[in-house]
């Protein structure tokens, strides 16, 4: 009874999809009069060789680490690789750390069903390194001499242009038009009052007070409304042509406000040149590293600039990162800080003020996809130690399918021959053992699904072989049974003795197979492991079915009935020794 329940449960698990289809068709045929409950379909976990996919083996370079830190570092590598693989949407990636006998550390990544291995290899191998760099003043100074000539030329041009525009403005040409044509993008002012005026800017500085911007306000405050200041105003960063649009008392206060318009012409410094060179090609070394890197990042998310909808990446630092970031921004107010990814600047914003709270935004010229990728890569973090690809195995999906079909076909043909042989040679017990083997097959498949055991081609071979072993257990029992009958024992007794005498052989021989399986599992190539695991489980289950299922099947047969139809079991009726070969008819 127990056997029947187990067998049915196993059947439902291993053949769940067929059962559900059948249930559907029954419901359809009887117009939903008979509706069988559905079972959950448990899929097999297919190995790489069956569903296609890649196995990548990396070797980690841990030479520089002390012995005690190696395991932790490898675990870190494993986690990073797993996160990077997850981006690819691989179902259940397997990433394992493996220490070899020679002491090398390996990471084995199995990506089942992956479409683009090339991309995955690129992604896994990369070490995205996010760095925040600040300007290296010493480096700038040393290059200043080289660039000073270029700098003078630039500033002379700027000065000439400024004088020309001043003359036009003083003459009374439309100031707004001049401003739009000549204003380069730049920041004006300091701190909270700083604003950016761009090329499309009409130079409108809005209402400012003398306190906020003394350099511009002081010379023009005595002018009449609408007048342009007749000289160039030179500040630290630019030549300015300034027009006083209006002036008034700030509401309720005794402070004068001035509405100014400004056309400015930058005065370049060596640092500007350096920055320009750096943004043009990232290989410039005039940036020096700060201690802040991607490892201080808590997370990165993509969002969109509320003003123009362009994608940007928001960074959130951990406590240490926030502290570092605050320090960096504090000492670089009004200077540029560059964000480097893998040694290339991706964004060089100017710090307007000290930023506390550990949040920053990286803007740059990326597309939404690039921004997303950057955020993902930043989130997955950097590899703690360098790794190199030492082995790769990729199986195309179509080849896998072909192998499965061929091997399953081969297995079925083989089993059919075995079943035929058993029935012809051992008659009724043979038939019963085939029944027991079918139950054995279902139980094994159900366990493979539930465990779950990864099915590889070698795993299927192991399973087929274990069926062979299960048959062997039955053969041992039946041979013994025949012998006991030959020795004149009555049937019921012969069955009992046949089982109990065959058991030591079955136990010992299967035990050696189990030993072999454990060695094979240690052998650790995933293919061979799959073979060993299915064989191991198969052998254990086969002992169970041989002893419990076959035996109880035989016992179920009524003794009288079996004695009457004695030929069903064997042609041997008495003590007379019959040479086994003559039984082959």
């Amino acid at each position: 009874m127990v056997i029947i329940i187990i067998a049915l449960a196993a059947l439902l698990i291993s053949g769940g999809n067929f059962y559900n289809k059948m249930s559907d068709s029954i419901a359809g045929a009887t117009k939903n009069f008979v509706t069988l409950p559905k079972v959950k379909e448990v899929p097999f976990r297919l190995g790489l060789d069956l569903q296609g996919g890649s196995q990548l083996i990396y070797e980690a370079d841990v030479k520089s680490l002390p012995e005690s830190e190696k395991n932790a570092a490898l675990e870190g590598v494993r986690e990073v690789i797993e996160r990077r693989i997850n981006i690819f949407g691989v179902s259940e990636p397997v990433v394992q750390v493996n220490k070899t006998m020679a002491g090398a550390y390996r990471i084995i990544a199995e990506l089942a069903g992956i479409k683009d291995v090339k991309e995955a290899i690129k992604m896994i191998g990369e070490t995205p390194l996010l760095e925040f760099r600040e300007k290296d003043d010493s480096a700038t100074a040393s290059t200043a001499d080289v660039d000073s000539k270029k700098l003078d030329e630039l500033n002379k041009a700027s000065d000439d242009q400024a004088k020309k525009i001043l003359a036009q403005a003083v003459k009374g040409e439309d100031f707004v038009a001049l401003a739009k044509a000549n204003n380069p993008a730049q920041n004006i002012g300091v701190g909270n009052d700083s604003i950016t005026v761009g090329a499309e800017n009409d130079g409108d500085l809005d209402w400012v007070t003398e306190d906020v911007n003394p350099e511009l306000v002081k010379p023009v405050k005595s002018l009449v409304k609408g007048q342009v200041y007749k000289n160039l105003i030179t500040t630290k960063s630019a030549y300015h042509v300034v027009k006083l649009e209006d002036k008034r008392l700030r509401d309720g206060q005794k402070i004068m406000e001035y509405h100014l318009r400004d056309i400015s012409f930058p005065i370049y410094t060596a640092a500007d040149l350096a920055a320009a060179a750096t943004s043009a090609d990232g290989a410039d070394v005039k940036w020096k590293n700060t201690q802040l890197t991607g490892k201080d990042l808590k997370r990165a998310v993509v969002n969109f600039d509320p003003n123009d909808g362009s994608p940007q990446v928001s960074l959130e630092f951990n406590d240490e990162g926030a502290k570092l970031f605050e320090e960096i921004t504090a000492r670089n107010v009004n200077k540029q800080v560059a964000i480097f990814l893998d040694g290339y600047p991706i964004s060089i914003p100017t710090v307007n003020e000290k930023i506390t709270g550990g949040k920053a935004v990286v803007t740059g010229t990326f597309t939404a996809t690039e921004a997303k990728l950057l955020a993902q890569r930043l989130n997955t973090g950097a590899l703690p130690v360098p790794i190199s690809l030492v082995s790769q195995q990729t199986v195309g999906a179509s080849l896998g399918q072909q192998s499965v079909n061929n091997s399953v076909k081969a297995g079925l043909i083989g089993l059919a021959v075995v079943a035929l042989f058993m029935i012809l040679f051992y008659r009724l017990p043979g038939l019963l053992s085939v029944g027991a083997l079918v139950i054995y097959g279902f139980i094994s498949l159900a366990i493979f699904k539930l465990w779950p055991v990864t099915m590889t081609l070698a795993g299927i071979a192991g399973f087929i072989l274990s069926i062979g072993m299960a048959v062997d257990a039955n053969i041992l029992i039946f041979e013994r049974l025949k012998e006991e009958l030959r020795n004149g024992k009555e049937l019921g007794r012969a069955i009992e003795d046949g089982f109990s005498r065959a058991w030591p052989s079955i136990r010992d021989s299967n035990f050696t197979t189990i030993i072999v399986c454990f060695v094979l599992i240690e052998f650790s190539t995933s293919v061979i492991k799959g073979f060993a695991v299915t064989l191991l489980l198969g052998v254990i289950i086969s002992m169970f079915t041989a002893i419990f299922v076959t035996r109880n099947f035989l016992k179920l047969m009524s003794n009288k009935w079996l004695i009457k139809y004695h030929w069903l079991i064997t042609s041997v009726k008495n003590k007379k020794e019959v040479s086994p070969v003559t039984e082959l008819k």
Partner: protein
Amino acid sequence: MYKIIQKRKIWISISVVLFVTAIYFISAWGLKLGIDFTGGSLLEIKFGANKPNVIEVSEAIKDLKLNSLSVQPSENSFILRFQDNSEEVHQSVLTSLRKLNDSKNPVKLEQEGTSTAAVTANNSFEELNFTAIGPSIGQELQKKAVYSIILVLIAISLYISYAFRKVSKPIASWKYGVATLIALFHDTIIVIGFFALLGKFWGIEVNTSFVAAVLTVLGFSVHDTIVVFDRIRENLPKSADDFENTINKSVNQTLTRSINTSMTVMFVLFSIVLFGGASIKYFALALFVGIFFGTYSSIFLASPLLVVWNNLKRKAQ
């Protein structure tokens, strides 16, 4: 009853001849090791409907200067083997071959009467299989393979010595273990020798699954041997016959079972060899050969050895 043990000289001679031949094959030719053991790359490529020939394929990747390249046409694909194993080489090989395929199978979208899908199917270029193994891994696997075979041999012998510990007359239980070990060693060498022969004349390589096959043969062969020994263990105390006849009786009693079991397994393996996927074909063949000789050795080698040993001991006394 067959006089198996009595004719032991014949059986042992056959085993010795097979064993020596196998040793000769192994030492003269050695096994043709696959890239699992040597390191390198194996790439299997399927081309479109208009297949290039071997020379065209070799020409297409000539510029890459691959080390020890071999191009081998298969059923409807090509198998390329080369020593380099870096990802860059892999990608450049793929690019070159894809170019070759495109020139052989130009995509004609305007082709009348054929849908676009059909045209692309004709042009289909597919990487069926790619394996690249670094030389260090290969070396390591070789070492591991040898270790695991030795480990299995020792573990099995120890287990048998343990399982037969209660049998001490007329020969000690560890001698059962040693007899098994000799039989197992004999099986292993014959299978390896057989594959040395296949490698020499048919270019068949051995890989890690071959090691698995050999280990399984060990398990199976010992399976057979144990069944015979178990019967000897059972018969010895109650037998009126001498040692030699008791053993012969035991072998005969288990003969049908040994042959039947091996036959059922060999049916399955034979159908895998004939119909199975290419990747497990040789795995099944190794098992087939191994199980055949494993059965032979358990009947005709292990048990006779016990008698020979016992006789030697008696002579010495």
